């Protein structure tokens, strides 16, 4: 094999790409990362996880301050300075992106700002501001991520119609916001704008929000949102958007017929599409799946043996931590380790208020597969900690193997669910049974006790719950 300029080139500096590159370098490989953006971090850092969670933190502070009235702590409505808020988010992004740069530097990972396309299966051409060049590699990791989809019917040329990137820029706080899509991105951003005092309407074509999560977990969230948002319209489609002086007129078609409502802004958050185009993949043997993702095996190897793919471009779930984990595995495989992706539980978190988090098997998936499971539940109504927070709107459930009690899945709705699910993932991965979780002493008073009490329900009664059997 001819000498190449690097052992590994990673295309895309998102959470998948930079994790893969760092791991490769740590394992002694000469590693280069190419990204077209000036700052590393990918969608997650620049226009995804990080800015959305920063804004959701601000939203939470606002809404908790409102709720504090019932505690005798009365705040007047806050003055919101959008410019400072935007700057704060930018500062957070800058801090993290500089962190990634510094980590790359100390690991001697070269970061190149350029757009990469395959010239052939061992050569990339890089087009950057300084011109173009070629780069030969022994291995490539494709980590080009995904981008928002805006269906043709909604793609009108009006800046008031935004995708998630536009909404995160916080151009203003629209009096009336329409969120098209009841997935996590739409609901999270709807939560942000609601806290900033937009009147929020969510429409979702399916009969339910958050496809993939169990319905009983969605209920507490949906109930709270129904009280706070203007409307949540399920089984409703946006047929048409029209620019008007006074706003965007949206034609909403639901079971009850079709109506037209006017909004000051519209957020379209109906899905994301993998970035597989204009990459020169046709010069390689890399193949795509029916859904348009790059096809990979458990070692993250594409049909072209020297090329790997990870993260959003390599398939669902399109989540940062899945990308990172795949990145680490791909790098290890390239470094010669015998390893493969074998995680049984990839957690998903919806950072709304309350949050929803789940991992492993869901109750609905178990039912669909005809799997014999026992589902135990602990409602947060019975949680001391939830009561001290004034937030009894939550539910913790375990999906257990009917016979052995083995933890196959965990689902949580409630404030802080995104942190609580980590214990669930460990339980699933370790092959814990309900008794293991029940016998682990959970500190009092915490929300994590709800996981323990749900586990206690497998063999007996949880201390704080009793129902005749």
């Amino acid at each position: 094999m001819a000498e190449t300029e690097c052992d590994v080139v990673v295309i895309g500096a998102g959470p998948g790409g930079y994790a893969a590159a760092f791991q490769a370098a740590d394992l002694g490989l000469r590693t280069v990362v190419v990204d077209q953006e000036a700052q590393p971090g990918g969608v997650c850092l620049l226009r995804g996880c990080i800015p959305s969670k920063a804004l959701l933190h601000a939203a939470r502070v606002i809404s908790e301050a409102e709720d504090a009235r019932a505690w005798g702590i009365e705040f007047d409505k806050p003055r919101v300075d959008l410019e400072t808020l935007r700057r704060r988010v930018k500062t957070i992004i800058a801090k993290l992106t500089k962190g990634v740069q510094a980590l790359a530097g100390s690991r001697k990972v070269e970061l190149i700002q350029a757009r990469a396309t395959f010239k052939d299966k061992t050569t990339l051409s890089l087009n950057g501001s300084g011109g173009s060049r070629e780069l030969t590699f022994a291995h490539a990791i494709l980590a080009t991520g995904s981008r928002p989809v805006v269906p043709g019917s909604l793609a009108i040329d009006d800046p008031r119609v935004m995708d998630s990137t536009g909404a995160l820029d916080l151009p203003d706080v629209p009096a009336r916001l329409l969120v098209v899509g009841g997935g996590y991105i739409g609901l999270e951003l709807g939560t942000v704008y609601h806290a900033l005092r937009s009147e929020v309407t969510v429409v979702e074509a399916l009969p339910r929000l958050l496809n993939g999560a169990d319905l009983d977990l969605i209920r507490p969230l949906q109930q709270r949102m129904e009280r706070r948002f203007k409307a949540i319209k399920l089984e409703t489609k946006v047929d048409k958007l029209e620019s008007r002086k006074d706003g965007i007129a949206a034609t909403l078609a639901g079971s009850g017929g079709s109506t037209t409502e006017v909004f000051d802004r519209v957020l379209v958050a109906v899905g994301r599409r993998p970035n597989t185009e204009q990459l020169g993949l046709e010069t390689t043997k890399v193949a795509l799946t029916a859904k348009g993702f790059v096809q990979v095996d458990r070692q993250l190897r594409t049909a072209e043996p020297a090329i790997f793919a990870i993260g959003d471009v390599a398939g669902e779930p399109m989540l940062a931590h899945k990308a990172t984990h795949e990145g680490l595995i791909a790098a290890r495989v390239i470094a010669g380790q015998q390893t493969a992706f074998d995680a049984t539980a990839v957690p998903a978190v919806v950072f709304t208020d309350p949050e929803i988090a789940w991992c492993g098997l869901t109750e609905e998936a178990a039912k669909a597969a005809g799997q014999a499971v026992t589902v135990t539940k602990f409602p947060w109504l019975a949680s001391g900690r939830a009561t001290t927070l004034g937030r009894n709107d939550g539910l913790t459930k375990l999906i257990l193997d009917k016979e052995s009690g083995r933890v196959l899945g965990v689902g949580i709705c409630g404030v802080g669910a995104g942190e609580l699910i980590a214990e669930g993932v460990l339980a699933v991965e370790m092959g814990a049974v309900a008794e293991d979780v029940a016998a682990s002493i959970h500190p009092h008073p915490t929300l994590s006790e709800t996981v323990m009490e749900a586990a206690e329900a497998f063999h007996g009664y949880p201390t704080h719950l009793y129902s005749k059997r």
Partner: protein
Amino acid sequence: SQPVSDGDGRYSPAVRQLATAHGLDLSHVKGTGTGGRVTKKDVQEFIAETGGLAASPP
């Protein structure tokens, strides 16, 4: 050799990775952990003893 564990798959990530790395069939490894669970140490000792003889055919 005969499987010695019921192979219900209650293997921790570290155990699974080690088995993958050595191409081992974990049902041959006797568990000494809580409830007869196979620990990483069990796998390491098994490999040391057998030289990884119980490797499963690919």
